[in-house]
């Protein structure tokens, strides 16, 4: 799920900033899911799109390539305004995120 090799490279680049970066990622991402659901309940697909877009970028930065990929499909749904598909997709995305979160916590 996480590209360990790339993550180690990131660790080399960030050095002492690596741990804070991962913590920042987890903190940011934790609040993105309630945000997405809130926007979804208001039918605001554009906000959903912005949020999932950010999650996608952040995830790819911490080498969670599969999660980033999954976020991208959700982003496309938001662009298309697929209100019926989005709730399930967001739930599935959160499950994947929780696994990444757990893995990251063990790694740092």
């Amino acid at each position, binding site marked *: 799920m996480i590209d360990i090799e790339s993550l180690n490279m990131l660790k080399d680049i960030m050095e002492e900033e690596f741990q804070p970066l991962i913590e920042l990622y987890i903190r940011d991402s934790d609040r993105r899911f309630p945000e997405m659901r809130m926007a979804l309940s208001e039918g605001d697909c554009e906000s959903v799109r912005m949020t999932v*877009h*950010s999650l*996608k970028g952040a995830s790819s930065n911490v080498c969670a390539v599969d999660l980033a990929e999954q976020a991208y499909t959700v982003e496309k749904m938001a662009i298309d305004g697929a209100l019926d598909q989005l709730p399930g997709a967001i739930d599935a995305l959160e499950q994947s995120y929780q696994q990444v979160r757990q893995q990251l916590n063990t790694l740092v």
Partner: protein
Amino acid sequence: MTAYKVLIADDNSVDRKVLSRVVRNQGNEVIEATNGFEAVDIFTEHRPDIVLMDVMMPGLNGKEATRQIKSIAEEDFVPVIFLTSLSDAQSLADCLESGGDDFLTKPYNHVVLQAKIDSYHRMSEMHRTLLNQRDEIARVNRHMLQEQRVAKAVYDNVAHAGCLTSPNIRYELSPLAVFNGDVLLAARKPGGGMHVLLGDFTGHGLPAAIGAMPMADIFYGMTAKGFGLREVLREINQKLKSILPVGFFCCAAAVDLAPDRQAASVWMGGVPDCYLLRNDGERIETLSSRHLPLGVMSADKFNDQMTEFPMANGDRLFLWSDGIIEARNSDGEMFGQERLINVVRDSAHASDVYDDIQRAVDEFVDGSEQDDDTTLIEVVMDDALREDNESGVTKAGISQGPRDWSMEYRLEASTLKSFNPVPLMNHIMMEVPGLRAIGGQLYTVVAELFSNAFEHGVLGLQSSMKQSPDGFIEYYRQREKRVAELEEGFVRINMHHTGVGESGTLTLTLEDSGDGFDYKRHDREEGSGNNYSGRGIPLIESICDSIEYRGKGNEVSVVIHWPLEQAT
């Protein structure tokens, strides 16, 4: 490595932190902005060298922030590189169309990132250099115009309009003519009449203007003191020759307008043909340059020979520089001598010619963005010029200066080898105001008498040698040889002047150490007219009241009364 100041604007804090770290690791200084508004504020305050801008940001998005930054930067070049995860061609093209300079797709390739930062930094430097040079050029140009204004003011003081405003003159001269090398001078002569000089210096700008100042200075100064135009031209030529660099000279047309003789003496060097139009409209006379421009020949080779034209009242002289002939129309075609002569021919009356020429040239160049450097002057013979009204030196001036004096100057062999006393003799004579008006002729007389005494007397060269072209060359070969071998001999020059103020008598006597000659026989043969050895004698005869050879023919004495009854 130079530390560049890089602004990173990205609302996604994880993305921003990673990119910021990478850019910092590469030795740059990073300022972070978390949204578009912040990016604009930080840009204004910190003026970074380069901006890395996320496209999608809440509030003020990347494209709008870029527009604002570019407008704040004004003419400074601040490269903005868009950060995007979009990779389709249209999205990338959109980035550039909205004012970005480049894009970088996520995830970033670190090597490409640094290469882009470096490359844009070089471009910024180049842009800055360009702006600096542009400002420098503008500054230099302002400075140059300022200098030209000052130079023009100085020039105007020296080369004031003289008597160009006289009723017998019409002229056209560009206000900045001094910088296209054209000069127009006119001055009343102390004894009546007028000197007019039209000059056209080689080149443009200051190099062309620089010679005009001494030229005007000499022209006005010497004319006011009563010097003849030949002497004025001789002096100007010598001055220009000595101050102008090789290849710089002044094409000129000079006119000595003499209403008392109803004539004009004209000297033209290097200017296009000019015209003399009779008041009765019957005849157009073409005046052509016979000399090299002023400032080309050394003093001893300068030819001050003038051509005299009879001019009745109302007759008109038209002089111009080549500006009028070279005036171009919008197709780049030149006005040309042919159009000019046709205008002159087609005019109903001589008095219309000036206006007709102006109109024809104006119509011809109409619409073309040519500099106005057509210089044109019309000089009309006017009997009123006889009166030496308000102008500088009057008869009172002529009556000043030395009256009764004599001087003897004896030159021995060692001096004769390398020293020419003629300019000094001339200088002494020129102290007498009444002699200045005939300075040119006097110079020729003294030069001729001295040359006879030295070459035929002291050196013993036979004037008859100069009768054939081959002999002429041989004569100068011999002369050189004999000067080199000269050990004994002398020339004695005696100048004696008596005067009453408004007239006077100059007696010049030259004696040499030579064997003399049979002057009685020479006198008889003088009428036969040989072309090589007789040079100067007709002139001597024309202005000297008497020429007397004495002794064995090694002494000659000439008497000149001034004012001349008829000047040449």
